[in-house]
């Protein structure tokens, strides 16, 4: 006991304080290191030595270096980060998508309205080629805008695909890193001390995974951390990792879904299990927002094109001799996408055949029969084995409603044709009546003369009529060339609207005759008058203003001068405000009218706008939650330079004091030597 004890105390104190300084230095050095948790040296007394006079302390010991850490806050920060990343990603993607739907004069609704408005000049001057040219230009502009929007959506889909791939690669890389760190940590754990920096690195890697995919973690006894994604699917188990893969959608090869490579077999993760992280945001955007936008756009494109072309076909064009108008606008047709898991023999799907042009096509096909009734949705056709042969379950994806259909069923404006070879049990098909419509929209007519401005029928009133009835409107609803030469004469037989009618052919021979009654506000229709052969359809609808009197004669005949007639151009103008989009015929037969093209586009705009807005709000909200969680974590574990500065001084002074101790010990020793000497 003596100077050596003091020397030893001083030595220990110096070492301890040096260690503390070292830790402080490490903290200062890592002030900006992401995921770094502040470390501190834990000191303990080195026990006491018993003497008769009691215990004498033996100085200080460095017990361990500990990191400031909170399991709870770390987990909280990484979960909230995952949710924030999902919301942020979806919000950013939606903001991109919103750009495909411009407002005002740049919008698709405006272009559609202007397409119809262009017919006003044709109606004013049917013979004027320049006003017909304007119609073509406006139609071209409308098609162009549809195409641009469609292409933008396609590009966004491509971007999503690329981002998904990149994200999945990142997750795999980070999972590998976690596995590697697990191994190192388990090895280091054996020493009895915690490898603080490795733990920090692993926490950081897991937090980085959260950015892409929400994960759960479970710590194992050996210090390793297992990582699971939704539904208990393991991602990292000890030092083993499961590879995530981007699998193509079962129906649509342009879409990717998240899958896992479970020892060689690829399995798609159900959407609902992928809850947080950028990948979840991307998938939700891709599988709901993008599909909806594409279908809503396609619905407008298909409804407008279908209605305009049908009206074209009802009219007569400006060629010599005038013929029924050919289509003005063409859009992408309906598509059928068979599931990749459908029954197949030697790689060839059972439910498919080789068509006339040598292409293998699915046995299921679609055709649009009533463009105004098309809905903005995809459909899934399922060969349910519990149903009778030839019956299938059709599910509308937008609202999940199902119904049973057979070959030839007409649903929401399209007909489903199922030919041999019939789909095998459990086969699935994705039906897309409108999804491809917009991106392939083109102007189908290049000759201004081809615009059908004239109506095939016209009405004349006898000059001797005594009633006040004049023509309010006459619209051809289908007059086939075989019936074009017919002339209908209506003679009113009393003052309350009773009339007799006669149909005569070009040679003035009586074809048919009958009677009917006109009531104010109701139109006179000819569809029941003609022989029911499709070749001789002679359907028109006539409405009167004023009141006819007995003996009044009204003649509906072939338009003699189609070049000067504007009946069909007027009908085209009428389409502008007609409910072209999204008409619904209910099972009871009640027809819920559609909306005009302007309203349809305004609705799409509002729909996308609301999605962007709410996605942005939730992104802001979850970002602020994530920020708070991160702040709570870093406030607890992060480095504060002022604190470190104070500690620096504190440990420096302690170190200096310890050094003084040595000096004192030294001088004690010297004194002893001198005294002895």
């Amino acid at each position, binding site marked *: 006991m003596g100077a050596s004890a003091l020397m030893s105390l001083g030595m220990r104190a110096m070492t301890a304080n040096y260690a503390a300084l070292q830790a402080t230095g490490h903290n200062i050095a890592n002030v900006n290191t992401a995921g770094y948790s502040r470390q501190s040296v834990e000191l303990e007394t080195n026990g006491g030595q018993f003497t008769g006079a009691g215990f004498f302390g033996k100085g200080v010991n460095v017990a361990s270096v500990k990191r400031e850490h909170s399991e709870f806050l770390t987990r909280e920060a990484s979960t909230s980060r995952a949710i924030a990343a999902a919301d942020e990603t979806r919000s950013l993607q939606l903001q991109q998508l919103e750009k495909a739907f411009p407002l*005002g*004069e740049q919008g698709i609704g405006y272009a559609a*309205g202007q397409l119809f408005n262009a017919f006003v000049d044709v109606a004013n001057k049917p013979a004027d080629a320049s006003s017909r040219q304007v119609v073509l230009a406006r139609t071209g502009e409308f098609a162009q805008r549809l195409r641009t929007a469609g292409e933008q959506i396609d590009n966004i889909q491509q971007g999503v695909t690329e981002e998904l791939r990149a994200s999945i690669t990142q997750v795999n890389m980070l999972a590998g890193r976690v596995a590697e760190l697990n191994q190192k940590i388990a090895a280091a754990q054996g020493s009895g001390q915690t490898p603080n920096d490795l733990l920090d690195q692993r926490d950081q890697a897991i937090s980085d995974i959260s950015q892409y995919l929400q994960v759960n973690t479970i710590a194992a006894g050996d210090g390793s951390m297992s990582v699971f994604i939704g539904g208990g699917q393991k991602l990292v188990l000890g030092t083993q990792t499961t590879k995530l893969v981007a699998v193509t959608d079962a129906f649509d090869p342009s879409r990717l879904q998240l899958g896992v490579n479970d020892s060689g077999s690829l399995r798609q993760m159900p959407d609902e299990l992928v809850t947080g992280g950028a990948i979840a945001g991307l998938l939700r955007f891709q599988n709901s927002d993008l599909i909806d936008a594409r279908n809503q756009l396609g619905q407008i494109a298909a409804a407008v094109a279908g209605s305009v072309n049908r009206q074209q076909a009802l009219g007569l064009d400006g060629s010599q001799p005038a013929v029924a108008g050919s289509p003005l606008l063409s859009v992408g047709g309906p598509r059928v996408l068979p599931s990749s898991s459908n029954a197949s023999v030697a790689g060839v799907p059972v439910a498919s055949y080789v068509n006339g042009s040598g292409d293998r096509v699915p046995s299921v096909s679609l055709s649009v029969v009533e463009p105004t009734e098309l809905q903005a949705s995809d459909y899934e056709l399922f060969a349910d084995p519990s149903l009778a042969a030839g019956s299938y379950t059709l599910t509308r994806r937008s609202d999940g409603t199902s119904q049973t259909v057979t070959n030839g069923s007409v649903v929401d404006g399209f007909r489903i044709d199922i030919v041999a070879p019939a789909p095998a049990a459990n086969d699935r098909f994705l039906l897309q009546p409108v999804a491809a419509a917009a991106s392939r929209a083109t102007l189908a007519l290049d000759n201004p003369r081809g615009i059908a401005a004239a109506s095939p029928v016209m009405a004349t009133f006898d000059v001797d009529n005594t009633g006040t009835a004049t023509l309010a409107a006459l619209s051809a609803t289908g007059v086939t060339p075989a019936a074009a030469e017919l002339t209908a004469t209506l003679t009113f037989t009393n003052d309350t609207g009773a009339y007799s009618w006669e149909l005569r052919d070009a040679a003035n021979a009586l074809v048919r005759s009958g009677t009917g009654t006109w009531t104010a506000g109701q139109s006179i229709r000819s569809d029941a008058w003609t022989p029911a052969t499709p070749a001789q359809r002679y359907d028109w609808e006539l409405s009167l203003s004023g009141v006819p009197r007995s003996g009044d004669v009204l003649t509906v005949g072939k338009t003699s001068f189609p070049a000067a*007639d504007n009946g069909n151009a007027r009908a085209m103008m009428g389409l502008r405000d007609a409910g072209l989009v999204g008409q619904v015929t209910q099972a009871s037969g009640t027809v819920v009218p559609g909306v005009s093209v302007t309203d349809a586009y305004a609705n799409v705009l509002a729909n996308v706008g609301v999605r962007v807005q709410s996605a942005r709000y939730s992104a802001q909200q979850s970002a602020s939650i994530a920020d708070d969680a991160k702040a709570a974590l870093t*406030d607890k574990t992060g480095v*504060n330079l002022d604190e470190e*500065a104070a500690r620096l001084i504190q440990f420096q002074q302690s170190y200096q004091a310890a050094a003084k101790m040595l000096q004192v010990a030294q001088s004690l020793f010297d004194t002893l030597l001198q005294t002895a000497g």
Partner: protein
Amino acid sequence: MSSRISTTRVHEAGIETLQKRQTELADAQERLTSGKRVAKASDDPAAAARAERALAGEMRAQTSERAVEASRTAMSLSETAMGDVVELLQQAREAMVAAGNASYTDNERKGLAEKLTSIRQQLLSVANRTDGAGSFLFGGQGAGAAPFVDAAGGVQYRGIAGERRTEPATDLPLTINGDGVFMTSLTGNGVFQTSAAAGVTQAWIDNGQVSDPSALTGSTYTLQFSVAAGATTYAVLENGLPTAVTAAPYVSGRDITVDGQTFRISGAPASGDQFTVQPSTATLSVFDTLDRAIGQLGTPSRTAAQIAQGNTDALRDIDQSVSQLQGARAAAGEMLVRIDSETGRLADQKLANQSERSRAEDLDMTDAISKFQSLQTGYDAALKSYSMVQRLSLFQYLNT
């Protein structure tokens, strides 16, 4: 709250706030420069949809204006053309009045016939007048070429009766029914038509008038004259069947009334002379009227009675045509008034839609400028506070 804060977070929070403020300021600046509150749908989805509908409404009104203008052009051109026709018919009327001059010789009447021929030519060219862009003013529902064709047997209307109209929202006429204006005036005095049968040379019948509308039957009456022993009598046949009047005494120039129709026969009818009184039909053509007058004026050696009958008929028919044209002209004038009010209505509609759109998507400048200024102040404060906070560090005070 925790009592410590990590240094990184001080900086991160500072940077984040600055960025947020800067973004807000840039957004506000963008809105101020563009003047739009709604630049994309998500800025205010409901307002964006409203603006979209208002824009469509504005375009609809603009489109209707084009239709209204087309109708205005057509109507005012037609109105002028019909004015010209009335003018020409007045000249024709003057010629016919002149032709009634008893001192005129056949040659002078022939001269008048030539004048009428030239009027007829002018009339035909007015009737076939176009709007300058290939559309015939009187083309009705449509005509392949000029609607009035000088064919054998007189001028024919080759268009389709009726009128072409603008788009359904305005539904205004773009053409005049040429058939109705020129070809289908009512014959006679508008209710019945008197005429002398061929071979009547010494008597003539005037146009007559309705003396008792309730007595009208719509039948065709024939007056058959017979002269026996210096006494002239007549019988009235209704639709070819004898009536109660079988031998009424005839006095030249005295009113004869048959079933509410009163007319006068003058001169000395010969035995066997016939006059017909039949209901008017809508078949009177302006051109046929002139053609008949020209034919008659060009015929030499007619008796005074024949000349009187011819002039009376021609004047009556010209007057009928003029009244028909004036009716149509007034209707066109009336249509122009309606077009004016329609123009006003469309202008209002356009303005209403423009202001609706502006309300929906335009920026309230006062509000925006004051908001911008408060954002500016906020950004300034954020910059200042950050620059002060980041200077505070214990290390600054530990310089030994």
